[in-house]
């Protein structure tokens, strides 16, 4: 998907900048292409500019500088109602004075579609989200999850090529949210539509997306498929924002190809993969995922450097065991172990040695 993005761009942001007050930039030089049929997620903390980008694409905000094109056509001057983009809002925005059927009928009516054709499309859209029996209800009579489905059906009923979703699952409880994630994903796959999805929930982003654009401070920090983003973060912001992460501060002792030797302040040496460090003596932040930390010598590669660790706490979480360790003079180093048959149960106070494959530890900018 990522490779195809450049060749057939369906949506493209070119050097887009956005300022609300003329003093500071909310979006700084955004370049992004989205290919047809792609599921792209804009992920980032609040205030990172991701929602502003979505609103510019929808036409509710105008870009201060730069060009946005949709299917090869510049759309900066096109008003929202002529863009033909479906949109799902955070609070669903179902019209409260209309029934579910009337809500779905609205986009078809404003397009001047005849009654029989409308009814057919409404029925199809409602069946698609398994809400066929609810056409005559008012939005207020529906549960959050049902409203969510209707909002989805309304955004899809007029067959848009592009659907934008602005944190659509934020108001649902965890279980429903996970269920809806799969439904949206399946709809995306079966309809072949292009989806731009905004969320601050990294789990949601990882589960659903073809590619994720991680936003911070008005810039895309990394644009990559979920696995790359999680396993090979480009910088310490991405590493810290996606998933749980152990950070060790140190200095580059030796740099050779795809191996870096990092000396910790306490004098110990660890292995890492250099990502955006250039030379020896440079400060670096080494990031290691808790589930990639090993404490059994048999699981570590030959000649791996190890660190002495003391178990301070073990938390039983059902599917995994979470051990909090004291490593290299600092508390809060986390190690996750699968709760398998015969898994070694650590006890607080126990002294162990931890290590990892060098490719799992990434030496990033501090």
């Amino acid at each position, binding site marked *: 998907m990522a490779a195809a993005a450049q060749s057939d761009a369906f949506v493209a942001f070119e050097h887009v900048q956005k300022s609300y007050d003329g003093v500071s930039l909310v979006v700084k030089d955004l370049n992004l292409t989205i290919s047809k049929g792609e599921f792209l997620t804009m992920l980032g903390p609040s205030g990172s500019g991701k929602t502003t980008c979505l609103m510019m694409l*929808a*036409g*509710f905000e105008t870009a201060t500088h730069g060009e946005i094109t949709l299917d090869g056509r510049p759309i900066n001057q096109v*008003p*929202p*109602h*002529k*863009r*033909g*983009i*479906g*949109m799902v*809002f*955070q*609070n669903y*925005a179902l*019209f*409260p*004075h209309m029934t579910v059927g009337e809500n779905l009928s*609205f*986009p078809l009516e*404003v*397009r001047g579609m005849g009654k029989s054709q409308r009814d057919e499309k409404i029925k199809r859209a409602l069946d698609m989200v398994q809400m066929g029996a609810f056409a005559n209800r008012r939005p207020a009579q529906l549960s959050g999850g049902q409203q969510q489905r209707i909002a989805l059906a*309304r*955004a899809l009923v*007029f067959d848009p090529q592009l659907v*934008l979703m602005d944190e659509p699952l934020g108001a649902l409880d965890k279980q429903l949210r996970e269920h809806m994630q799969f439904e949206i994903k399946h709809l995306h796959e079966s309809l072949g539509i292009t989806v731009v999805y905004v969320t601050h929930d990294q789990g949601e982003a990882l589960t659903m997306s073809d590619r994720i654009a991680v936003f911070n401070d008005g810039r895309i920090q990394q644009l990559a498929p979920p696995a790359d983003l999680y396993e090979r973060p480009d910088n310490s912001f991405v590493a810290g924002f996606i998933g749980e992460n152990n950070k060790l501060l140190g200095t580059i002792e030796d740099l050779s190809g795809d191996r870096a030797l990092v000396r910790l302040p306490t004098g110990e040496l660890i292995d890492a993969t250099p990502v955006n460090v250039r030379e020896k003596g440079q400060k670096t932040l080494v990031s290691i995922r808790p589930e990639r930390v090993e404490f059994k010598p048999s699981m570590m590669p030959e000649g791996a450097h190890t660190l002495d660790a003391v178990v301070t706490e073990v938390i039983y979480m059902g599917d995994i065991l979470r051990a909090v360790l004291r490593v290299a003079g600092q508390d809060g180093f986390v190690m996750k172990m699968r709760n398998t048959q015969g898994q070694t149960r650590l006890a607080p106070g126990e002294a162990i040695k931890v290590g990892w494959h060098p490719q799992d530890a990434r030496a990033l900018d501090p």
Partner: protein
Amino acid sequence: MTDLAANALLTTADGRPLKSALAAAQVRAKRRAFLLVLPLLLFVLLTFVVPIGQMLHRSVYHDGFSANAPAVSAWLAAHPAGTAPDEAAYAALAEDFKAMKAAKTAGEAGTRVNYTLPESRSLFTKTARVADDLAPPYREALLAVDAKWGDPLVWEAMRSASSAYTSDFYLSGLDMERTADGGIERVPPKERIYVYLYLKTFALSALITFICLLLAFPVAHLLATLPMAKANLLMILVLLPFWTSLLVRTTSWMVLLQGQGVVNNTLVALGLIKDESRLSMMYNQTGTIIVMVHILLPFMILPLYSVMRVIPPSYARAARSLGATSWTTFRRIYLPQTLPGIGAGALLVFILAVGYYITPALVGGADGQLFSNLIQFHMTKSNWSMAAALSAMLLLGVLLLYWLYDRLVGIDKLKLG
């Protein structure tokens, strides 16, 4: 059955039946709740329900004649309407006049008859002055005092006044009067004032409400969409008139709008109008409309604002993204959601406008007077019963509208803030 039997056997820990224990516990809570609202209940009862009840009672009750002229009232009660008064009737009248002269109540009785038949009061006071000289045969004696005592209309008026309870005040309010034979007919066209003014008051109030709505809608929308700091400033400007005395506001409009006022002078100075054709915007209907719209505008803005403030902008955005133009979005999405506010504001402004009297009294001139000015007129004349009857008519009109609103929109949809 088994459930009932089991319930009947349930007792509290100390052996009392559960039901009576529950009732006892609830009685205490209910009594406390009642005592808490009691002061307000009494206050509302004393200052609202009782006065309105009294007003309604007064509109159908006036014992000025029946209490002071018991003998003739008794004769009238004994004889059906249309009976020509005989010597006994005149004797009873003379007897009553002697008593009224002693008690100095002839004016009161005359006032009551006067309401039904104008210019009767002087007949009573004139007769009372010579009451002591009246001697049999009374018919001749009274006719000698004033020939009007032979007029069947006077006797019909006394018949209607002889009962303390009467619908005469409502008849007058509907521009009706009694005929000599006890029938009812409309007063001559020249004297028909109440119904015309009643309808005009409702029409003017509707116009004022409509203008208020047109002016308030954009302002309320602006208030609801501006950032907080700016909206607060604007809100202060909206509320500013509330903090100024009604009289001050009305007089400033007089300064602005009168013939030699600021607006006219400016227009003349700019050469837009000629000096001899200055606009008359004061002391007429136009003045009443302008000033009342200004005074009642906040009552329209506030309910609208409170409704608009809670309509999330995402509805409009959703409509736009679904392909609606901004006009369609307004008409089909925004406007329907502001209906509770429009209803509340319109009802509030309309009811206030219908009962307004200071402003029309000050700036209305001859043709800008409203129904309430008539009520005030009768109150200053101490004709409480007539004022009460007119007030009751106004109240009925407002209640009818209220009922209509409830049927059409639903009172539970009303949102005042």
